[in-house]
């Protein structure tokens, strides 16, 4: 059983969002990079749990990124991946990224490919579906629970106002979210072991990007809060009804 976990680096969740170069680039000055929470907390940890149950499971990690993505890959290895692959390219076009991942996946013949629900910076929620399409595999998205029984996965995914349970045979692509596993932190042994685990660097295949970022914008600043006295709740209701017109 071979699992490929897609890992992307994202700014720390408290990072200040600002832009540079006439609002065409994210300003990463002083930004701390972390593993995209969905990739770390849910995809990777669930893969590790599957490996703990079945020693035959092999976990590979893949990222599309430049050398500055290596610290987060080392951290992912410290949590429990067996081997990491970095595709040496920098892109924000989902199709470009997915094509790179699909090329690696084809070569590695994976039974299961985990992606996160979305990256918390570009919020595409797209890579999993694209990789699945490129590999002609089924795709279950926004997965809350994932179990394996031999070659069959039992998957609970989020639907509007509820959950849906389904069964599907491997190979399969999944996008994971809260519920699939509990966050863990790497231990000292994992951190030591990660130093000697392979982190392969491969060059990207030629793919044309289909989209490009023209510019970024910040939302207009709020006018400021209108405070209502706690003893005058009726005033708030009046404001919401007559001024804001939302009730």
């Amino acid at each position, binding site marked *: 059983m071979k699992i490929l976990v897609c890992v992307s680096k994202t700014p720390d969740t408290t990072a200040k*969002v600002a832009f540079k170069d006439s609002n065409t680039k994210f300003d990463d000055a002083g930004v701390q990079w972390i593993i995209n929470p969905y990739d770390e907390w849910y995809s990777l940890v669930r893969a590790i749990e599957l490996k703990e149950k079945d020693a035959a499971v092999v976990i590979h990690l893949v990222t599309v990124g430049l050398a500055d993505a290596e610290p987060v890959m080392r951290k992912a290895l410290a949590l429990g991946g067996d081997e990491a692959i970095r595709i040496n390219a920098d892109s924000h076009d989902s199709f470009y990224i997915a094509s790179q991942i699909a090329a690696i996946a084809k070569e590695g013949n994976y039974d299961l490919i985990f992606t996160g629900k979305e990256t918390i910076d570009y*919020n595409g929620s797209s890579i999993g579906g694209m990789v699945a399409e490129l590999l002609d595999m089924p795709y*279950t998205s926004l997965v809350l629970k994932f179990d394996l029984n031999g070659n069959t996965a039992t998957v609970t995914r*989020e639907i509007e106002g509820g959950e*849906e349970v389904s069964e599907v045979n491997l190979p399969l692509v999944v996008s994971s979210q809260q*519920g699939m596993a509990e966050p863990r932190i790497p231990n000292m042994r994992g951190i030591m072991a990660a130093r000697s685990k392979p982190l392969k660097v491969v060059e990207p295949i030629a793919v044309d990007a289909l989209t490009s970022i023209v510019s970024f914008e910040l939302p207009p600043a709020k006018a400021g809060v209108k405070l209502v006295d706690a003893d005058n709740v009726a005033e708030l209701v009046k404001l919401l009804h007559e001024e804001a017109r*939302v009730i």
Partner: protein
Amino acid sequence: MSVLIFVDQADGHIKKSSFEILTYGADVAKQLGTTADALLLGATKEDLAALGKYGITKVYHIDNANLNNLDAQVYAQVIADAATQTNANVIVCSHNQTGKAVAARVATKLKAGLVAGACALPDTSNGFVVKKTVFSGKAFANIKIASAIKVISVNPNSHSTVIGDGNATVETLNINVPTPKVKVTAVNKISGDIPLTEADIVVSGGRGLKGPENWGIITDLAKALGAATACSRPVSDADWRPHHEHVGQTGIQVAPNLYIAVGISGAIQHLAGVNRSKVIVVINKDAEAPFFKAADYGIVGDAFEVLPKLTEEIKKLKASA
């Protein structure tokens, strides 16, 4: 050339977010000087000709038992085939759970650039540029699509529905529907509740409520307003509330007309999930709580005193309306 809108339904009823994208798609078609058609998959209880009221010319309905549950692979195949047969060059869907499952696959099949999570109509003055939310609502990016065919998935609650007159013609298409590989074995709906991502009003509770036994004041207010309920992450982590109510950067992102935050401090990760709300009301006993900086209206006070009063006042308003 035409615009094709993929209409999503639940239990045979078209979702609110899909009515929004009918108007969005019709507006895109107007901008491009072409027509907007809709595509609906699986059994339906809706009067499809009536979609003409949203500016739709033709409704393509493919009623096949293999489409009654969502298998992303099957749906994407059918939507892409329909787009090709009808010569569509812009495909619009909602960035809801279904859209997140299928839009990327459809785009890949058609070698089309995708903007996922669009929040405005495209700017076609110089190419084809679509604004989308990034950094979990903390910013926007303008994305240029270079390919001939474009796929746009639109954030729920970001485009208002416009209803006019007219009738659409309803047709089917000759499309081969593959057998799903994903076999649905159970659907668990949380009955009675309003789905969070569809709600106009959301009442949300945080750790300030002290424990799950106190949630009555939240649900009472939500009931009076016809609102959905939500919570902060520590609340769902502690199992005070179900996980699907957790909003924020790592939870659900909502954009209702009104978001009422009760006993929530307003951490940056929480704000990321709610800052697209049109109006934010914060009720917190600490005047220094960061949430007040992101709020439109606020009450500094004890939730346990303020909320029951607020619920009473809302009931009075509703009774007088």
